[in-house]
């Protein structure tokens, strides 16, 4: 299984959001780091075909995702950054509805809905309207819907934003478990989330991919003289070293 982005460019008017991005994903967790406007969300939107690319190609197992259309989307789980939900629906009905749109039905749908609600710790509020949820709870609802249908490619845009530490660890561990036979793309500002679970980290800046390597390799790439105080360097230092202005 391989998701390949080849020389992809995207412009919004005069602003270049992505410039000749080339990267290949195989099963594993990919943490995407970058400041606002680095092109993280644009890359995710291109993979989900929510924006039109201006050049290049995105292929899944060698076939362009635009040609695959529904077949590719059937393999996709997407959790957008924006907390868009049907506020009038209950958590259960929202997840069930998305399950239907993913092509699930009957017992499979019921079982999967129960599983993802359990997993995201929403079972006790399943009959409450999503509109009355806190930001963190909405985040979990969105994560729940992304997990439905056993997706082979999971795109998570800020999945742990707004969650309490306990929930974050829970979700993080779950994502780690999921990634055995899946491609998981995880964009976040919370660097520690990536550090412990990501197989590789993509550092993006102004629409370009600066580096892509395992966290340990990135940390090792920072010169020891970079920090005047001696301490064990971590991924936050990588972020500041490569992406800090």
């Amino acid at each position, binding site marked *: 299984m391989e998701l390949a982005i080849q020389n992809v460019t995207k412009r919004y008017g005069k602003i270049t959001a992505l410039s000749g991005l080339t990267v290949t994903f195989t099963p594993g967790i990919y943490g995407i780091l970058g400041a606002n406007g680095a092109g993280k969300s644009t890359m995710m939107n291109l993979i989900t075909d929510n924006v039109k690319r201006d050049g290049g190609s995105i292929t899944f197992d060698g076939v362009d995702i635009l040609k695959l259309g529904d077949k590719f989307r059937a393999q996709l789980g*997407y959790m957008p950054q924006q907390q868009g939900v049907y506020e*009038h629906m209950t958590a259960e*009905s929202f997840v069930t509805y998305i399950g239907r749109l993913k092509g699930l039905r009957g017992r499979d749908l019921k079982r999967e809905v129960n599983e993802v609600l359990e997993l995201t710790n929403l079972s006790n509020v399943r009959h409450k*309207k999503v509109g009355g949820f806190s930001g963190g709870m909405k985040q979990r609802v969105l994560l729940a819907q992304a997990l439905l249908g056993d997706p082979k490619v999971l795109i998570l845009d800020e999945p742990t934003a707004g969650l309490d530490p306990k929930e974050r660890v829970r979700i993080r561990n779950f994502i780690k478990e999921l990634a055995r036979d899946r491609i998981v793309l995880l964009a976040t500002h919370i660097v520690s989330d990536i550090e412990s679970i990501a197989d590789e980290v993509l550092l993006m800046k102004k629409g370009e991919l600066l580096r892509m390597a395992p966290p340990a390799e990135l940390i090792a790439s920072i010169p020891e003289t970079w920090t005047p105080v001696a301490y064990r360097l971590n991924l936050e230092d990588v972020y500041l070293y490569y992406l800090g202005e």
Partner: protein
Amino acid sequence: MGEWKRVLLNPRRLAATALIVVLSVAFFFVGRMEYFGRGAITRMVEGERYYDRLVSRTRGHSPEEIDELLTAEADYLENYITLLLWDNDEYLSMPRAEVEQWAAESEFVTSLAGLEESLREDILFTAQYRVEELREELQYIKGYEGYIDSIQKQAALQSQTALFGDKNSFANRNLLRTAAEFETMRGVKVEFGSNRAVEGWAEFELADYLYLLLIILFVFAFLEERKAGLWGVIRGTSGGRWRLGLTRVAILLCVSAGGAALLYGVNLLASLALSGGWGDLGRSVQSLAVFRTLTQHITIGEWIAQYLLVKAASGFMVGLLLWCLLGSLSSAQFSLSVLCVMLAGEYALFAFLPVQSIFNPVKYFNLFSYIRTSKLYTEYLNIDLFGYPVGIRRLALGALPVSTVGFLLWAVLTAHLRRPEGRRSFLQVLADGWNKCLDVFRRRLTVGGWEVYKTFIFQKGLPVLLIILLASGTLNYIRFSNEPETGDPWVMAYLEELRGPADDYVDDYLVAARAMTEGDATLLSALDEVEEQVETLRERARAGGYEPWIVGPVTPYDCVYGPKSLDLQRLNAAFAIVFIILCCAPVCAFERQSGVVPMLRSLKRGRGGVFVRKLLTTLLMTAMIWVAVYGREFREFVRIFHPGDIAAPVGNFSELSAFPFPGMTVGQFLALLYALRYLMLAMLAMAVMFISGRCPTVELAYMINLALLGLPAILYALGIDFLRFLTPVNAVSVADGLWTLATTGSFKQLIPCAILLLIGLAALALNARRSNHPTH
């Protein structure tokens, strides 16, 4: 000052207030029109001017002299209209010269000289209605003293019966009280004058409901911080408790007073400006027939002032009550549901509880008594309060200050004492239980089922459709003909007998009929004419290649689908357009407003799958509107239509013989008309979907669609003719185009349908494309 500014100067609330006032004025004037379409406004204005002039001519005259004047005016108008329409002395009830002389001297008739003939005739018909109204008013004036006498006599008579005889009973006390109160009205001077402006204003119900809407709009402004999650923050500030409560009470008072002045004052001034009557406000209020039962010594002008004050006070009290109730809820999300349940309950008691019920105090001491305040003045009724009769007006108005003070204290104390957190909401528990039950059902919904559910429940499609169903019940479809039936009655009778295919049976019938005439010249001549007509029919049918058929007159079709009812067809089409907007505008905008579009688009069936279901749901709603508007029309048509004609080819109607497909039966013709109408409504729905799909919020989708499509449609239907190029009214109506095609063979009037079809198909294609492809 901050709270005043936040509440009163919020742009959306200001816009909504302006819209409410505009709607009130617009519907008030629409209610005054007897006719819609081209020249409707001129017809209304001229009719009102005629009324004003006629009333002026009656000033200083005795009722008998006024009676004579009105009778003469009615006769002259009748004869003049007859002359104008049919130019036949036989139909006149006075010498032609006299009628012509009257017309030449009449200021009203001469003022119409520059107008189109059809419009002039319409205005003359309106003038006839106005004269009739004045004659009825005169009868009322003459009979008022007699009415007072009859109440006294009835009281004296009834008090002798066993039912009313017991002096300790409510019935007896009520009888005596009624007689005593009306006795005080003896000697009240009821005078003939201009009543139309004030009566029309007092009876305009919609203003009451719009006033309630305005009050609700501002009450909801007081609950905004709860929905925004700012209640705790506001309550934590130094002025966020009782001081804020008092400020809001003051704001509500201003809104109630200002709203009453705006909604009622503007309509009253406009009504007086239109119909006249400024100088007649000093008469006793009983001079207006609607106030026949009012037992209060007061002039019309004083009543207006009192009424406006009562309205403002009632609005304030109702606002306080709603604020108290909604403010007492722990969870703001239930505000709208609780409000709807409460208003529905109160209205049910107000409207449906029988007057005789022992619970009738709750019918009159009711929220809607303070909303439909004019009823307190136009209905005389004493209710049983512990065996004593109490007038409904006295009860409601007496309780007004007490309730106001009570609710005011409740509101301020709630603002001061109520804590935002830490309460278990009973409604939340109920809602959770309800949602649990609903989830059992919703689990089984398919994608299509979900789309219908979202549209009807989340996007409020169901209540909107119910309102549409009620509103469409007020639409009119038939313009009955004023023309007298012409032609030989024997010929008409024979043709009626022979209605059906013009086959051998007709020939046999005619032979038999001839044999039965016994040489009667009238009958023979009639049969000759029938034979001639049948022969013409057969020749035409032979040439057109269809079956000859003896059909009835074209009048029923003309009255519903033809030029006679053109104004109604346009108005109904305009309403259908507005209904489509109300139902279909949220369909695409809802997803954008919810922010779920990127997520949906990443799903297997989230693009074409969702779009197709949205399309089907839209077509389903279109079908419901089609049935609500045009199903009723067909039902009305069936009432006046001869079912025997349904299989007759259209070409047999001489008026419709230019139809390019003369062999098409009447049934097929009607099916085509209604199918085209559905198609046009569906195309319009596609355009509405296209616009709403580009709007980020449902609110904006409504506003843009109403501004672009709804408002021009209504204005055109009401008579602003140049808008015909900017609105799809004629396309949706279809009847005008098909009728013209059938009568002249010209497709010209069907061009709007073709344009709408193209627009609809283009919108559909663009919507489909957008659903499958990213836009950026």
